[in-house]
């Protein structure tokens, strides 16, 4: 192949990129059965998709998320669930395996809440295991079976070897693996992308100024193979299953209406 000048030949450059991705089996790998290529998994938000290679998350990859602080774990979990809800719209396979250890400080997964996030709970297969190692094993089995739309797991922490195993299994089966780490993001991991998620104050509900509106997260893409780090405040709209840019500046934080009225305060001990 001739040396090529990116400025003069953008099409050639894109072809070359695709070729490298194919060599690395990162994205757009032709289906082994001879079907169409597996597309990248778009978030539907230009600010994020532009930072990701091929304009989306790799379907055959391990994606890790953790809360920025200890209280942000549920936000990170909900972000992963939102990713699943987006994936759900394009995958014909129904079941998503969710693995969690029995003792999670965030409580257990709740079906009606998943439905309210935009994900049909009947499509979930729930696995409860006692140890993180079992969770990792079950996730790997789920990935290798290639019968699932995605695999989601929650662990306290995971060492590099296990994350590498998961990443390999995800790459071979082209099944996305999502991992929620409760201990924050450790030093080393074989994940394709790593996200740090924090809850962010969002807008009020459209018809009630005092009520919380759409969930809002501050996302940091710390690392992504073939992509670049990015930061973004997003809102999740469960009805359309879309991420939207959070209009943080569009309206100021809700003025504490209650304080203005000086109510009688009662203190109740739990």
């Amino acid at each position, binding site marked *: 192949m001739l040396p090529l000048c990116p400025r003069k030949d953008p099409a050639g450059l894109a072809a070359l990129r695709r070729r490298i991705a194919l060599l690395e089996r990162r994205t757009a790998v032709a289906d082994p059965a001879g079907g169409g290529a597996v597309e990248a998994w778009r978030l539907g938000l230009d600010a994020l998709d532009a930072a990701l290679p091929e304009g989306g998350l790799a379907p055959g990859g391990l994606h890790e998320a953790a809360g920025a602080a200890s*209280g942000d774990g*549920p936000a990170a*979990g909900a972000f992963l669930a*939102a990713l699943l809800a987006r994936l759900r719209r394009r995958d014909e396979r129904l079941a998503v395996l969710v693995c969690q250890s029995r003792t999670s400080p965030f409580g257990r997964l709740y079906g*009606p809440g998943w439905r309210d996030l935009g994900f049909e709970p009947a499509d979930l297969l*729930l696995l409860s295991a006692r140890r993180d190692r079992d969770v990792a094993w079950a996730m790997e089995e*789920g990935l290798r079976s290639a*019968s699932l739309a995605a695999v989601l797991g929650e662990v306290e922490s995971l060492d590099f070897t296990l994350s590498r195993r998961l990443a390999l299994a995800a790459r071979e089966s082209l099944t996305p693996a999502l991992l929620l780490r409760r201990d924050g993001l450790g030093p080393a991991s074989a994940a394709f992308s790593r996200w740090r998620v924090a809850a962010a104050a969002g807008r009020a509900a459209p018809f009630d100024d005092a009520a919380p509106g759409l*969930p809002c997260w501050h996302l940091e893409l710390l690392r992504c193979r073939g992509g670049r780090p990015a930061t973004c405040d997003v809102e999740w709209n469960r009805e359309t299953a879309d991420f939207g840019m959070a209009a943080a500046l569009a309206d100021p934080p809700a003025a504490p209406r209650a304080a203005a009225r000086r109510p009688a305060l*009662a203190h109740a001990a739990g």
Partner: protein
Amino acid sequence: MPFALTAPGRHGAVLAAVNRQAEAEGLAPGMRLADARALLPRLAAAEARPAEDRRGLERLALWCNRFTPCCAVDGADGLLLDIAGADHLFGGEAAMAAEVEARIAGLGFEARTGLADTPGAAWALARFGREGNRIAAPGDTAAALGPLPVEALRIAPEDARLLRRLGLATIGAVDALPRPSLARRFNCGEWSDTVLERLDRALGRRPDPVASLPPPPACLARLAFPEPLIDLAGLEAALARLVEDLSASLERDGLGARELALLFCRVDGGAAERGVSTARATRDGAHLRRLFEGKIETVDPGFGIDAMALHAVRAEPLAHEQFRLAEGGRGSNEPGPLIDRLQARLGEGSVSRLAPVASHLPERAERWAAPGREGEAWPVRPGLPQRPFRLFDRPEPVEVIAELPDGPPALFTWRRLRRRIARAEGPERIEPEWWTGGSGSDPRDYYRVEDVEGRRYWLYRAGLYRNAGGKGPPRWYIHGLYG
């Protein structure tokens, strides 16, 4: 060396069992140990342990799976083997009985076999039949039982004594009596224990349900080895053969296995059993083999395993086109094999699906269903407040500062952190379900709140300030977290 086992009796220890030498010296079960010692000072005695005997007998019953898949413990000292359809494998009934006796003798036990059309007749022949005369030909039960004593009918000892006092010493004599008079005289106690009933059961005139005999497996494969196997590789190869045979016979019958049992018979009389179950009927050999992964290692081969059997304990019809549902390429929509593997390793019930329950109480609104079936669709509930993404099984108490009497919380402390609330929605009142007996608990007012950092919680107040009564002020709890 004369030896006896003793059991505690009303007036000191009583002999429970004696060995041949002791028997030759005139000892018998039922004698008191003191009397026996007086007769035979060098008698060695030990306490009988019936529970361990029972366990040993159960192990032996499992080991007898090498002869037939239907084996059960019968009473305190017997095994019951249903050999219908199995005797030709051993060269006929007489050869099979001899083989059973020889094999059990090889383990160091003494056994007698009786063989007849009914369990009752076989029981009688094994215990009271004469040497060489313990096999009743099909349809010939009455003739074979005729000369046996009445005790062979498994009746109460007092009934047997009464029969003997009436001059009826053999089963043949009892059978020759007119039935109405027999029924009139011996009609006390349980119906199944009456003389007439026992007689009819033994002679096959009435069905003799044997509760302890397991139902025969839907399909099975067995393998006996000329040389006992000790190493894991050999056992795995044997398992592969068994699975192949079993799936072939399942396919022939149009069945798929739901529950499997793998049996190991050891040379020394030990036996082991390992079971797995599947979420959907399957006969895929590779899949079945993988389910037993990690299970064979846990079996102690002892001095070697010389027979193995694989039983499809429970099977369901499985159409032919569903064959090969294990992992193909992308797009095999069937998570069944995966569920089986996960459950085989992490335990039954570790995988489940969420199913909706029509209840207003949040903790009752879902249930964990078996994963095999298709998930039930969740109803849409337009207009209802959003539910949390995570729920605490046990709501955690929080300290709340809120407007009186029923304003939303303004500040709360949970897990030692104080959180200032920026937005709140509520209350959503959920009353206890009186029809489920929960009318004694307090109504709950739920609030969906967001703190200044954007984290969202689901808080509720149990009870009302207005009519707290003697219960004290209402308490606040956190019940869930939103993402």
